[in-house]
């Protein structure tokens, strides 16, 4: 009898040989259990997203990854913007016109939010790496401070943008 798991159907996690459970990978040793019917099942991994109460700590952590991925796309755009400038006056004029359109401004607005968020939460991460701010109330306070800083820095940026532009 072979047990497979629906979520990763290509992997045989453990095999039953009579009463003996043969684990394919030693990491699976702690993952086997029986459900209330006595059937062998693979234990679910925590966190269970269906029952996990959203919290500021988990939400901010996910945002950090999400904004990091978005900013990676932004870095590619930065390279294309510089390449357009290095190509010809016409190519750069087109690039600037695209960025100046409503769509371009919306995209740039998203990038400023992502950048200021990743920047602020990045400082929070570096402070954790240095050993500061692990107490739960402090963590919550710094979390809200990151959100406030994101909004504040974005407001300052677009305020200056309107003044200069």
């Amino acid at each position, binding site marked *: 009898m072979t047990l497979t798991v629906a979520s990763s159907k290509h992997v045989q996690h453990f095999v039953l040989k009579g009463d003996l459970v043969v684990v394919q990978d030693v990491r699976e040793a702690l993952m086997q259990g029986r459900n209330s019917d006595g059937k062998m099942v693979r234990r679910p991994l925590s966190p269970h997203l269906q029952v996990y109460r959203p919290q500021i700590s988990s939400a901010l952590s996910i945002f950090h990854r999400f904004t990091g991925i978005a900013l990676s796309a932004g870095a590619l755009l930065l*390279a294309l913007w510089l390449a357009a400038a*290095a190509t010809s006056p016409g190519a750069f004029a087109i690039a600037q016109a695209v960025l100046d359109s409503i769509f371009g401004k919306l995209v740039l607005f998203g990038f400023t939010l992502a950048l200021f968020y990743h920047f602020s939460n990045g400082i929070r991460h570096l402070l954790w790496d240095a050993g500061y701010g692990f107490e739960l109330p402090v963590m919550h306070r710094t979390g809200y401070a990151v959100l406030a800083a994101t909004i504040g820095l974005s407001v300052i940026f677009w305020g200056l943008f309107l003044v200069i532009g």
Partner: protein
Amino acid sequence: MSEKTTLRPEIMRSALGRARGYGSAKSGLHHWWAQRLTAMALLPLSLYFVASVLLLAGANQEAMIAYMREPWNAVLFIALILALFYHLQLGLQVVIEDYIHAEGRRIALLLAIRAITVLFGLLAIVSVLKLAL
């Protein structure tokens, strides 16, 4: 016979870690440090970049050339590009390693990310140099 206390470094490892016997996780420490160092470099560099974007909003190519002809602007832009593309490659690598479990697809994606980072990073640097020189 006196009982002598000796340091047993292996005691720091979990039973599972000892059983698996893989040793340290390859170049994990270097990855960790490089991600933090580039993060620290990017704190001032990204603020400089944001200020540059404000200054160059709506600029034409002539203004771009004039800006990049200032040696410090070219240097800071190239430093930004190096730190930024290195940092994003390290970050995307972790995301892929966390979520893509099929080995073939994972390795293919990791290689693709490296190729794209190197090519676009070089494109950005060469463009800055061309504007500056």
